[in-house]
């Protein structure tokens, strides 16, 4: 499988704490994306990091990518109750796959308590 796999499956923290989610994948990629999904809703794109980038920031989000370890992490700083959602990493694949096709993991369910 070329899917990314998130870790942990579930994460529960208090407001104000930082949340870190990890993603591992199996094949060489062009880019890796992180999406958020609120309960009963569609996915919302958070951030895209390309294979030649090591770190990227967007507001309270920080994403790192280590292509040698085939892993990425998403850090949400100063979490809020509104950050409660499922977070998915999605990878494309350089070879053996249709251009643009994304492979999603099972996601990490983040719960932020007020």
């Amino acid at each position, binding site marked *: 499988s070329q*899917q990314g796999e998130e870790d942990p499956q579930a994460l529960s923290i208090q407001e104000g704490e930082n949340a870190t989610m990890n993603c591992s994948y199996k094949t060489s990629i*062009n*880019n890796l*994306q992180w*999406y958020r999904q609120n309960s*009963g*809703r*569609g*996915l*919302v*794109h958070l951030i*895209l990091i390309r294979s030649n980038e090591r770190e990227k920031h967007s507001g309270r989000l920080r994403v790192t990518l280590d292509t040698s370890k085939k892993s990425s992490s998403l850090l949400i700083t100063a979490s809020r109750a509104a950050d409660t959602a499922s977070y*998915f990493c*999605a990878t*494309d694949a350089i070879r053996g796959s*249709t*251009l*643009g*096709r*994304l492979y*999603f*993991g*099972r*996601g990490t369910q983040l719960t932020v308590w007020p």
Partner: protein
Amino acid sequence: EAGVAQSPRYKIIEKRQSVAFWCNPISGHATLYWYQQILGQGPKLLIQFQNNGVVDDSQLPKDRFSAERLKGVDSTLKIQPAKLEDSAVYLCASSPGDTDTQYFGPGTRLTVL
């Protein structure tokens, strides 16, 4: 800018019945995707269109699922006949090209009884 629209939002049918879902992508987006998301899992690509041509339908169960994209804009996904295991959320997404960020619609939650 209007987002990806999908209808209906919810559908309940009995097994062996037929069902159709509709998607209107963001204006100007060439690529359209249909995903199936089973409870507790990530989305799985069913079919990918580039304009009105099929680019990837390798994961589409073609004996019961069909999809079309009329004039490279709107798309419909049909299931005929439905099985219990088809219960899932069906997500439509679009992107300007084939390597860009994908924008998702709210999804259609299908329950097959």
